């Protein structure tokens, strides 16, 4: 670190452990949100080889559902139930709502095209169409004004006030976001590796047609994949609101673009890869702002990501697709 200081670029505060850890926690938190959302992209792509661009809007609807539950239960400043229960209810409602929405999107916008063996570009356009429809409908029904979760009012602000552990400064809200993401990741991993439906998902992901011939109900697997991926997107929407407060019709589109990038960089189709990609982008953004300038954050992030893809075209944890001859 002293060598870096000698270079004359860094300020002395930027070379302290506490500052480094601050940026690390900020990046991990943001990366967890991206990762949770990236999993949805990756799961759907893994099974259907479809880029579900409507996933960002599922995230947005999840965020709105969480907001309406929050308001119905008294708001952040004066909830009528304990805060832990409030957060669980918000997550549950958003996950169910987003999951059902995901299934509906698959049923009405993608399945007919899949059954008709439409060219691959058709579901892609259908996904974009659903994305814009949901954005517009959210604007009409929920209004375009920003809605605020106001997490700084939860528990009198204790959840957002940082506490210290040695050089580490972290808030309970950051802990909640990181641990909740880790929990969902663990549950998903168990689901995919230890259950029958998980095995079916992996089989479908390897070869949809062969899986069907082996007696796997492919439609059921696809519905399940959409439900789980969308539910995680909905949970991401609520956590985004709890951490960053603002919800608006375009919130999913913006986060979705980054999460999609995370899924590709992590290795699209790979669930751990999506999380790794999300965290990588979160950390890059955070360190770019903390150690250089916010004005260059996207330049730095995307230059590094291009470099990663040049070195590993399949992404960090991606594997090359087998060539069928």
């Amino acid at each position, binding site marked *: 670190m002293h060598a870096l200081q000698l270079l004359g670029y860094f*300020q002395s*505060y*930027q070379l*302290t452990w506490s*500052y480094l850890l*601050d*940026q690390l926690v*900020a*990046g991990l*938190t*943001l990366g967890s949100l991206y990762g949770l959302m990236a999993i949805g992209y990756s799961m759907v792509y893994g099974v259907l080889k479809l880029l579900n661009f409507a996933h960002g809007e599922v995230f947005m609807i999840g965020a709105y559902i969480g907001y309406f539950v929050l308001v119905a239960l008294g708001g952040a400043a004066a909830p009528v139930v304990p805060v832990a229960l409030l957060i669980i209810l918000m997550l549950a409602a958003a996950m169910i709502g987003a999951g059902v929405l995901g299934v509906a999107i698959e049923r*009405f916008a993608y399945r007919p095209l899949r059954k008709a063996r439409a060219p691959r570009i058709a579901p892609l356009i259908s996904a974009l169409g659903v994305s814009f429809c949901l954005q*517009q*409908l959210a*604007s*009409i*029904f929920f*209004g*375009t*004004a*920003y809605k*605020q979760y106001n997490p*700084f009012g939860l528990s009198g*602000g204790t959840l*957002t*006030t*940082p506490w210290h552990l040695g050089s580490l*400064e972290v*808030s309970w809200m950051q802990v909640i976001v990181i641990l909740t993401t880790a929990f969902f990741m663990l549950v998903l991993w168990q689901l995919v590796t230890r259950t029958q439906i998980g095995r079916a998902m992996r089989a479908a992901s390897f070869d949809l047609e062969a899986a069907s011939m082996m007696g796997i109900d492919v439609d059921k697997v696809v519905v399940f994949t959409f439900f789980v991926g969308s539910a995680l997107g909905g949970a991401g929407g609520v956590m985004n609101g709890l*951490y*960053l*407060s*603002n919800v*608006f019709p*375009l*919130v999913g589109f*913006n986060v979705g673009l980054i999460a999609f990038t995370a899924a590709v960089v992590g290795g699209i189709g790979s669930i751990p890869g999506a999380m790794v990609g999300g965290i990588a982008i979160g950390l890059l*953004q*955070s360190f770019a*702002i*903390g150690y250089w*300038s*916010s*004005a260059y*954050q*996207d330049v730095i992030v995307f230059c590094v990501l291009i470099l990663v893809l040049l070195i590993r075209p399949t992404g960090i944890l991606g594997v090359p697709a087998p060539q069928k001859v």
Partner: protein
Amino acid sequence: MKKVRAILGVIIVLGVAAAATSVAVAKTGKTVRIAAGPSCKLATIGVTGPFTGPAASAGIDQRNWADLFISYWNSGKPIPGTPKSLKRIPLVAIHADTQLNPQVSATVAVQLRSNPAVVLVNGFSGSQENVAGGPILRRGGLGFVSGSATRASLTNPTTPDGHVLSNGYFHRVVPNDNAQGSVDVTFMLKKLGIKKGDQVMTVDQAEAYSVPLISLMSSLLGKAGVKVDRESQPATQTDFTSLAQKAVAEHAKAVAFAGQVASNAQLFLQQLKADGFTGKWISTDGTFDDTKFTVPGAYISSFSLDIHTIKSAAPIVAAFKKKFGQDTISFGVPTWVAVQTMAHAISIACTAGHGHITRTSARLALDKVNLKTSLIGRPIAFQKTGDVRGGISFTIFQIGGNGKYTAVQAG
């Protein structure tokens, strides 16, 4: 069975679309009968603003002031700056929501341009909206008067924006951002105790409104010997955690923020405070919204005066409260003045045209408007560039413990 499902699907989609349309129509309010062409019996003006979207609170305040002015004008009530001798041509307004979105304002501009009855337009509210929609209004021969667009280049004919807009088409009744940047920096240096050698973080939102404004403020602060950390966070990237940590770590004495989303200002300042920031906060008029930005102690500059401090305006403010069931946030007050200049121009054009008016005559008449006084207690007349003659400045407000905005330095 497949056909039944397909028909069912189509019915559901149409049902959702119909419901959405009915909500959208309900939100646009009442319809008005409009003359086929420009008329001196009932003159039609466009009233634009962000009535929905992130700046809806400010936009609705603007619309309310425009509507209040028109009701005063049409009913013959006394209006500051309007002589009794002036023949009032009755006005009817077409409201158009631009959502503070340049693409939407361009669409709105096409609609207004295509409506032959429209003679003048109030707007656009945002500077970037004027850049997008202004040239379209110009092609339709329409003059337009904004009550809130402050970007300096809009009235500077040597810039690309000003070259297109400032030749008699775009007008505004508010000061420009050169004034805002200067007022804000002077306030920081003289009232907030920022001095040579102090560290200040300046943050824009990477869009056309805030970048030049923060560039100017950073430059002025730098000239005063203040150490400036110039940052730029896109409005779509809503996590300010790393920036907040940076501001605290570099011991910034103040953060100056320019943006058009008040909720972002709220989040950034809350994250700063959570990280232990004890310095001062000042943000620009784009964050002026007492429903979304309510952190006590923050300072905000605004082109508008606090109308509550002007005694002569008290009866009109009371009428505003009565008509709309809520108090004004003062943001929309200049819109009253903007519509007033349009009303005067229409009267002047109709008188000169012996009962006939065209878009061109109405637009040219804007330059002949000369209000000896106005609701904000100041005379209003336009320069050739479209700026107001004389000096209107920015007012600095502070947010109180109850979230209420109070003027602490008059403009």
